[in-house]
C-alpha cells in the first residue's frame, strides 16, 4: 500500500516546488484571484486529462480531443443560435447547447472507439484521422472564421464559467467532481479494475471473461463525454469557437497524464497524478507570465525543462526500487 503513495508523491513534490517558486517570484501568485484563474483554466484540460487517463490506462490513446472540443463547441454554438428564435433567450436554449456538446462528445468518442475496437485500427491512426476531421469540420462550419454565440445568450451563459460559490467558480467545482469521480471509478469500481486489467494484459482480461472491446469502447466514450463537459464550460468563457480552438490540447492532456505517473503503455492509472500533472502544466504557464524572463521566446524552452524536471523528481524514486 505504501508504494502507490510514494509514486504519486513524485509529481506532488514537483507541484509544491512550483508553488514555492511562483510565490517567491511574485507575491501576487498566491492571491485568491490568481488561484481561481489558474484552477478554472486547468478545468478544461483537467477534465479531458481525467478521461485520457482511462483511455491510456486501457492501453489506448486519443489525439483527437483538442479538435473534438473545438468541433463540439462549434456545433453547440450553432445549435444555440438556431434554437434562439424558437425558444427565446433563456436557460432552455442553453441547455440545448449543453446537450448537443455532451451528446456530441459521446458520439464522437463512440466513433473513435468503434473504429479502434471494431475495425481494429491502431488508436494512434484513428485519432490522428479524426483529429484532422474534427478540426476541418469546425473550420468549415465557421467558414474559416469564428462561430460566435448570440450576445444575449452569452450574457446569460457567462456565469457558468465566471460564477460559482465565492471564489470557487463552477469550472473548479466541476473539475473537482470529475477528479473525485474519476479517482473513485478507477480505484473502486469494476470498470476501473477492468480498464487496468486490459491495459496490463488484454489477453488475461479476455481469459477472465472481460468484454475487452466493450470496455475499451467505453473508455473512449467516457473521454468523449468529458470533452463534451469541458466544452460546456469553455463556451461561456469567450462565447466563440474557431479552427484554432483547442489546438494542442491533446498533447497537453497526454503530457499531464504521463507526468502524473500513468504509464503510456497502459496498466496503471493514477487519476490523482493526472490532476497534479494538469496543475503543474497550468502553473508553469502562469509562472512564466508572472515572472519577467529573459525573452518570451524562451518560454517554451523553460516549459520543456520544467516538465522534464518534474518527471525526474518522480522517477528517481522508482529507480532505487527496481535495481
Amino acid at each position, binding site marked *: 500500500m505504501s508504494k502507490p503513495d510514494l509514486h504519486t508523491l513524485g509529481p506532488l513534490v514537483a507541484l509544491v516546488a512550483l508553488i514555492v517558486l511562483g510565490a517567491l517570484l511574485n507575491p501576487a501568485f498566491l492571491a485568491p484571484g490568481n488561484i481561481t484563474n489558474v484552477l478554472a483554466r486547468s478545468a478544461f484540460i483537467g477534465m479531458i486529462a481525467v478521461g485520457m487517463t482511462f483511455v491510456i490506462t486501457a492501453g489506448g490513446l486519443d489525439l483527437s480531443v483538442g479538435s473534438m472540443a473545438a468541433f463540439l463547441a462549434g456545433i453547440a454554438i450553432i445549435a444555440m443560435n438556431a434554437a434562439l428564435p424558437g425558444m427565446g433567450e433563456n436557460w432552455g436554449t442553453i441547455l440545448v447547447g449543453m446537450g448537443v456538446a455532451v451528446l456530441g462528445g459521446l458520439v464522437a468518442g463512440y466513433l473513435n472507439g468503434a473504429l479502434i475496437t471494431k475495425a481494429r485500427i491502431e488508436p494512434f491512426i484513428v485519432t490522428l484521422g479524426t483529429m484532422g476531421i474534427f478540426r476541418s469540420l469546425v473550420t468549415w462550419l465557421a467558414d474559416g472564421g469564428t462561430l460566435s454565440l448570440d450576445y444575449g445568450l452569452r450574457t446569460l451563459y457567462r456565469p457558468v464559467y465566471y460564477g460559482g460559490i465565492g471564489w470557487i467558480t463552477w469550472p473548479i467545482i466541476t473539475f473537482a467532481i470529475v477528479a473525485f469521480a474519476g479517482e473513485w471509478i478507477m480505484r*473502486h*469500481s469494476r470498470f476501473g*479494475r477492468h480498464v487496468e486489467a486490459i491495459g496490463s494484459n488484454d489477453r488475461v482480461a479476455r*481469459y477472465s*471473461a472481460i468484454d475487452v472491446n466493450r470496455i475499451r469502447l467505453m473508455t473512449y466514450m467516457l473521454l468523449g463525454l468529458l470533452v463534451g463537459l469541458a466544452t460546456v464550460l469553455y463556451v461561456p468563457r469567450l462565447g466563440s469557437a474557431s479552427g484554432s480552438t483547442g489546438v494542442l490540447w491533446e498533447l497537453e492532456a497526454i503530457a499531464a497524464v504521463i507526468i502524473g505517473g500513468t504509464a503510456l503503455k497502459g496498466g496503471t492509472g493514477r487519476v490523482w497524478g493526472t490532476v497534479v500533472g494538469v496543475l503543474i502544466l497550468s502553473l508553469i504557464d502562469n509562472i512564466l507570465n508572472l515572472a519577467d524572463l529573459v525573452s518570451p521566446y524562451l518560454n517554451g524552452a523553460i516549459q520543456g525543462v520544467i516538465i522534464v524536471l518534474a518527471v525526474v523528481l518522480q522517477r528517481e524514486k522508482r529507480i532505487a526500487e527496481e535495481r
Partner: protein
Amino acid sequence: MTILALQDVSKSFGPIEVLHDVDLALEPGEVHALIGENGAGKSTIMKILGGFLDPTKGQVLLDGRQVIFGSGPEAEAAGVVVIHQEFNLASDLSVAANLFLGREIGGWRLDHAAMRKQTSELLERLHSPIAPETLIRDLSVPDRQMVEIGKALSRNARVLIMDEPSAVLTHREVGTLYEQIDRLRVEGVAILYCSHRLDEVAHLADRITVLRDGSVVRRAMRGELDEDSMAAAMVGRELQDFYPPKGQPSPEPALEVSGLSVPGRVRDVGFTLRKGEVLGIAGLVGSGRTELAEGLVGLRAASGEIRVNGQPVAISSLRDAFDAGLAYLTEDRKEAGLLLNKGLRENLTLATLERFGKFRLDTVAEDAALDKATGDFDIRAPRRDMVAGKLSGGNQQKLLLAKTMLPDPQIIIIDEPTRGIDVGTKSQIYAFIRNLSAEGRSVIVISSEMTEVIGLADRVLVMREGRLAGQVEGNAMTEDNIVRLAMGVAGEAA
C-alpha cells in the same frame, strides 16, 4: 572438484528472508537435483547461481574462488547458463533470431543462412520439427520450451541450471530432454536440475538436495531416496494416497458436445461429460486439446452443438460460458492467466468482480476471498500485498486455480492443472478435484502427464490431430493404450 558452489547464502526480499544459510556444490559430470515445495526457494537459488540476483549474505564460488556476477550475461560468459522457469524469448522475433540473440553469426551482414542452418540442426537434435523462421509468438507453449532448451544447449555451458524444464513438456519431448542431459553429463557439464516430477528426479539425479522453507533439510546420493521419501523430506511429513479413490459418476449428462469444430485446429469432436465425472483428455502436443477447450468456452471461434444439463446453449464468449456454469483454467499462466504486475487480490477476483459489490468494490469481501483461497489452495505468499509475478511459479499456479474456481462453476475445464506444483500440493489439488466431482460437479482435466490423467480421471479421451482418436475407461486406462491412440498406432482401443 566443485565448479560452482554456494557458501552460507541467505537472501532476503525486503524484510523477508527466503533463503537461510544455504550450501550447495555442483560437480562436473553430475546431475544435481534441487527439490522442494512451492516457494521453498529453488528458483531463487538458481537465480543467484546464474548471476540474476545477488545474495544478501554469503558467497558464490566459481572454481573455488569467490565471484560476484554483476548480471546473468556475465555469469553466462563464465560458462553458467540458466533455463528460467519463465520464458526468456522475444516473441516478435523468429526462433533462429532468439537462439542467436546477442551472439549473432556474421560480420557486417548477419549470416541468416548459417543461423537458420544451425538452428535447424539443433532443433533436429531435439527432435523438434520447428521451422527456424517461425515467430515465437506463433509457437505453442511446449514448443517455446523446446526453443529455450535449445538456446541453452547452444551456449556450450560448463554449468547448466534448469528450473523446471519439463513442467510444460509432454511425454515425448521429456524423453528428448533426458537424452540431452545424459549427453551433457558425459561431456562433463555440471547440471542443476529442478523439478516437481519426482520420478524424473529419481531417474536423472546423481545427487539430491531437498529444500524446505529456504533451508537445506536433506542431502542424498543417487538411490538413497525413493519417490516417497523425497516427498516426505520436502513436506516434512508422510504423504499417503497420492491419487484419491475414483468416484461414482451419475449417468446423467452434464455437458454434451457434438460436432464441435475450431477452424483449422479441431474437427468434429463430440463427447458427453456426466455429472460427478472427472474426464481426462490426453494427446500429444499440438493435438488440439487446448483449442478444443477454448472453442468450447467461447475463447475461439467454433461451431457445433453444446448442451448443458440437456439444454442447448449458445456460447460465443467466455461470459456466456460462465453463465452456463462452465469455467476454464488456461495452460498459459503468464500470458493468459495472471496479471503479473498486479496484486494477488486483483488477480483472484478479476473474473468475478460482479460478486464483490454492485457499485463500489468491496475490498473487505475481496480480502476475505483471498484469505479463503490462500487457505484452500495453500498459496504461500510472503506478503499479501505483493504482485502476482513475484510469487513462486507453483504458487502462481495455485492462485490461478483459485481464480478459476471462484465463480463456483458446475463444469470445470482444467488445462494442465498441476504444472509446476509440488507433490504435496498436487495431492491436495487432486483431492480438491475429486471433491468437486463428489459434490456433483463435473471436471475435464487436460494433462500432458499421463500418470496424472490415469490416476485422476474416470475416463480418458484421446485426441490426435484435432480429432477424437478414441477413449479408454476402467482397466483399459493404461499408458500404453493412450499412447497408441495418441500416436495413431493401430490398437484395440474402443
